[in-house]
């Protein structure tokens, strides 16, 4: 998927979020570090342009909530979590780049609950590649990308890698 493809997906998701929730009242976006943050920022801009108002954006690092954290010898780098608003009674839109096993989303939901009691949590992802290990599904999907377990799906974004593209590559 190329730059235009990614942009079109995000534009559609922005409209879908607003349609499903009948506007942007009580909506907050929550980007999951690191890929989800850039996508959430882009969605924020698109939705703000459509509705002419600003949607709050939070950044969530789920490292401390991972279920494999105590088993891994080397600790993953910990980024900052930044949520400058209350989540109570909000509709939280979790944003991530790739939905795979669902474990990241499980961790993200546990983390969110520690910040308050959202009215609802919805999930937006750019790519759904299947192979779920937990009963989790996305509310907004950019593209379904059936892939084999031996492949890796890489999402490059301008903000991070200087180019917008989604590629499937052989797991090395």
């Amino acid at each position, binding site marked *: 998927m190329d730059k235009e493809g990614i942009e079109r997906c995000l534009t559609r998701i922005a409209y879908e979020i607003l349609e499903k929730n009948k506007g942007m009242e009580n909506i907050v976006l929550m980007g999951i570090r690191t890929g989800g943050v850039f996508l959430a920022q882009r969605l924020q801009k698109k939705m703000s342009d459509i509705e002419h108002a600003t949607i709050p954006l939070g950044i969530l690092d789920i490292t401390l909530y991972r279920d494999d954290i105590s088993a*891994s010898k080397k*600790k993953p780098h910990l980024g900052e979590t930044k949520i400058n608003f209350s989540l109570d009674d909000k509709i939280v839109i979790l944003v991530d780049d790739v939905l795979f096993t669902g474990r990241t989303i499980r961790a993200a939901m546990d983390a969110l609950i*520690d910040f308050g009691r959202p009215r609802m949590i919805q999930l937006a992802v750019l790519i759904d590649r299947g192979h779920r290990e937990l009963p989790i599904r996305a509310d907004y999907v950019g593209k379904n990308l059936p892939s084999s377990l031996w492949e890796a799906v890489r999402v490059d974004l301008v903000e991070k890698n200087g180019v917008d593209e989604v590629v499937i590559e052989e797991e090395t």
Partner: protein
Amino acid sequence: MKFERKDILGIQDLSVNEINLILETAESFLEISTRPIKKVPALRGKTIINLFYEASTRTRTSFEIAGKRLSADTINISSSTSSVVKGETLIDTARNLEAMNPDVIVIRHSAAGAPHLLARLVKQSIINAGDGAHEHPTQALLDMMTIKEHKGKFSGLKVAIIGDIEHSRVARSNIYGLSKMGANVVLAGPATMLPRDIEQMGVKVFPHVEDAITKADVVMMLRIQLERQKQNIFPSLREYSQRFSLNRNNITLAKKDVIVMHPGPINRGVEISPDIADDPSFSVILDQVNKGIAVRMALLYLLTGGSE
């Protein structure tokens, strides 16, 4: 960068990259202490033993809170209520604790090198919470984190450390750390409290406090250990306070945006006048305490790993 260490024994053997990684990780942990629910599940099922052979309020509480906010189980042992009073040696105590399978042992001991001995002896991670007059690495890390937040950098900063350098593990760890990070460390104190050949650590020594704090970006006051007076190291508290305390008059010699630090517990009116210690435009003393929890959370997080 990956953190590869089993133990944190001192700042002397940490690299600049390792210090930066610890400080960055700690900065990410700061936010947890401001949440409505101040707890994350990262260290669920881990056990941390705080083994304190010396009195402590700040450090022990800070380690305990750090462990609890990460969901670890923390156990405190102080020498007065342990088998130490029955004559058990440090080595025997350590072997017995090891047999109980904790994940981290935090130790404070009056003998320099006690944590190093433990680190060789047991398989668990050891964190030095102060060993004699040798090192107090977690204090230096939280001091560096506080300086970094207020000044944004280390290189070129003038940091004055004032007081009883000879008996101060805080001073030694900070000299190692701050020099490594590129700060310019200067010392002042009575001649009886300055170790011989301290210049070999790359610091400048002044006999008068005024010379040391002139144009300083950071002034770090050390606690005068009142019990030292008996050893004839200084004649009287009053004389010490007149010659070496930080007060309204001499602080004007430092830079306008100087920050004043103190590892605590402070002797009000001895090494620092109360109006300076309590003045939020200079004093970052309570900020240091706040950073201490984040630094200790970062170390516990980085040290506890699985078996593979």
